[in-house]
């Protein structure tokens, strides 16, 4: 089997605590990022992503302590996004134990930042996060329906349009040295209707780097569709895992049943035998 398709649970973190709710019946403190990350690790997650939505600058450093604690207990790749504005922010996250950082609006406002970051720390740890909404437009030369699919980058949680074409932007970010694209459909986010497969396919076909599909997962078939139809290399989901609807292992099993290359985590005890 070739390289496995990855399943990545994503947690929103505010002031060092998991928000938007996690609902595992047997976790004592579902607000503790370490507890939740450990649980996903045990279920066989291929990576874990934290999105820091802490609003106040005074509390920014709390994410560093979270990363330190998680990295000392969970030995799978850890990606951290949110609030990254300068090279020093990246350095501090990597030193705390993050393997990759995810950069969103700072890349939009200053694309050169991605070039600097990848030259400094290596492409392998620079993920560019793209939030896109469909904005089909009348374009000359389009089909009889008069429109072609087009997606625009939005910032500020989807409130501010930028006029930038998402597919072109992804290509530019790859050229600037991004090692991976985390692609979120703002239309799909929270709908449970599945990924925007056309968007995922359009971006995945246009960039030479891996693409993570995100936004809209409601069931396990959506994960499979993201890979088969969307061409994604990895699939990210939040709520279907947080509320215990499905475990990571069930998702892995569904992917394997669909014929996808899948990694099943070892069931060895966590402290290895000699």
């Amino acid at each position, binding site marked *: 089997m070739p390289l496995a398709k990855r399943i990545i649970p994503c947690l929103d973190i505010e002031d060092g605590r998991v928000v938007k709710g996690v609902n595992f019946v047997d976790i004592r403190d579902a607000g503790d990022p370490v507890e939740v990350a450990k649980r996903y690790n045990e279920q066989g997650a291929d990576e874990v992503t934290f999105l820091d939505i802490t609003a106040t600058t005074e509390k920014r450093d709390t994410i560093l302590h979270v990363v330190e604690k998680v990295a000392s207990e969970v030995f799978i790749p850890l990606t951290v996004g949110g609030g990254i504005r300068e090279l020093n922010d990246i350095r501090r996250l990597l030193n705390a134990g993050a393997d990759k950082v995810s950069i969103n609006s700072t890349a939009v406002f200053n694309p050169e930042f991605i070039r600097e970051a990848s030259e400094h720390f290596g492409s392998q740890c620079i993920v560019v996060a793209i939030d896109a909404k469909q904005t089909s437009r009348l374009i000359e030369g389009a089909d009889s329906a008069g429109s072609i699919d087009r997606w625009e980058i939005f910032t500020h949680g989807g409130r501010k349009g930028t006029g930038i074409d998402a597919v072109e932007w992804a290509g530019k970010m790859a050229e600037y040295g991004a090692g991976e694209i985390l692609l979120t459909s703002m239309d799909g986010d929270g709908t449970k209707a599945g990924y925007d497969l056309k968007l995922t396919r359009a971006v995945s076909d246009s960039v030479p780097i891996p693409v993570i599909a995100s936004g809209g997962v409601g069931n396990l078939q959506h994960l499979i569709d993201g890979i088969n139809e969307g061409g994604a290399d990895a699939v990210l989901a939040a709520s279907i895992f947080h509320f215990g609807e499905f475990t990571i292992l069930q998702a892995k099993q569904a992917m394997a049943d669909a014929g996808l290359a899948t990694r099943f*985590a070892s069931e060895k005890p966590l402290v290895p035998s000699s």
Partner: protein
Amino acid sequence: MLIAIVDLGIGNLRSVEQAFNRVDTAIDVVVTADAKLIDSADKIVLPGQGAIDTWFQALDDRELRSPLARALTEKPVLGICVGMQALFSYCEEGGGMSGLGMFDGSVRHFNHFHNTSSETLKIPQMGWNQVAQVNSHSLWKHIDDQTHFYFVHSYCANLHDENLSDVFGMTNYGHDFVAAIGRDNVFAVQFHPEKSHRDGLQLLTNFSQWDGN
């Protein structure tokens, strides 16, 4: 026992340190660029990520070539990622340069091998891929053949001839490349054991218990 992780200022060294702390709290682990510590340590870990030319530059800037050369001949050494690639004779990254030359092979970009593959491969290879254990080794103890390990790299190691006697693991990504290689007291892997969950920790445990023979 003291394990020294060679600090070239590149990569997530803390993860390697934390992983060793996790497998055995009795091990002293130090991240260091101090030649004396590297000389006195019982075992050496040679990590690395990112560009190999930067890696070699740091090795020279920190005057660690000689201590590393001594370690490679006399005590257990574990190379990880760029720390494995550096042991080959040639690396084409950054315009091309000689490696440390312990193994006869070239480290080349995955792009060169695309034409042999039916599907378009994303570069870097990022994620979990299987390692075929082509030869047995103490460091494979309690680890199954074809286990998934975590890889992240754009360059891969390829032998100059068909002789697999030093090769302990091969992985396929468009073509077969070297995932684990070793000789005598040296063992080196392309993947990241410190990020490879239980099997990765098992490999680090095996290294901590390995006498280099």
